[in-house]
């Protein structure tokens, strides 16, 4: 199951499905990093609203993703982590330290816009 990546102005939005395999996650990571370079995107939103579980592999992959995206001069925001998922994550010992988070897509976009205002980014349409 491939994760669709949407281009919205200066930002990229990837929306997770419920059941992602490790393979899917790694593919997404590569695809996003490549596209940030290609489109010179200012920010990436990873929407995990539908994700049922965030385990150590998913967390590690997202952290690595955020790191690589940052190396290309863009910010990543993880949005839509569900309360139950967050609860299980912190008990497992995963806190996604250093990776920005937001409540949902709308918040995440607002956050990215604020961050890139100085850079003169534009955000068109929705």
């Amino acid at each position, binding site marked *: 199951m491939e994760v669709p990546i949407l281009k919205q102005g200066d930002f990229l939005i990837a929306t997770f499905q419920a059941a992602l395999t490790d393979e899917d996650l790694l593919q997404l990571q590569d695809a996003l990093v490549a596209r940030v370079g290609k489109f010179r995107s200012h920010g990436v939103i990873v929407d995990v609203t539908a994700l049922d*579980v*965030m385990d150590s*592999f998913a967390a590690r992959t997202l952290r690595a993703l955020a790191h690589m995206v940052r190396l290309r001069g863009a910010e990543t925001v993880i949005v839509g982590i569900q*309360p*139950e*998922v967050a609860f299980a994550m912190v*008990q*497992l010992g995963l806190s996604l330290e250093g990776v920005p988070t937001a409540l949902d897509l709308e918040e995440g976009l607002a956050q990215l816009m604020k961050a890139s205002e100085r850079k003169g980014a534009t955000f068109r349409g929705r």
Partner: protein
Amino acid sequence: MGDEIRVPIDSDADIVIARQQGRALAERIGFSATDQTIIATAISEVARNIIKFAKRGEIILSTTMKNPERGVVVVARDQGPGIVDIQLALQDGYSTGNGLGMGLPGCKRLMDELEIKSSKGKGTIVTMKKWTT
């Protein structure tokens, strides 16, 4: 009650199947949404360890009862290389597979009970339980 669900673990797609089955079972016996997620997360971790360290194995899900509580039992078994030092494997940050080393100690925190039986070269059996309430 008492039925067993066996999920063979052969590829990373099976990890998803195992955790979905585990969640459904947990829901059936009355676990809260949070506990369902907790159980699914723990299953994901032990299933991934099977793929990562033993290539293949299986997850066996069942229910149990200790009046008045009900419980779900997750058994992850494989015939892989085994864990040499179980104490060490249960410590935060210990990993021989360049992971975070969070999986097993995390499962111990997520679940109510966790027991590991393993012998070098023969395989590993991780048994985890969680009780309602």
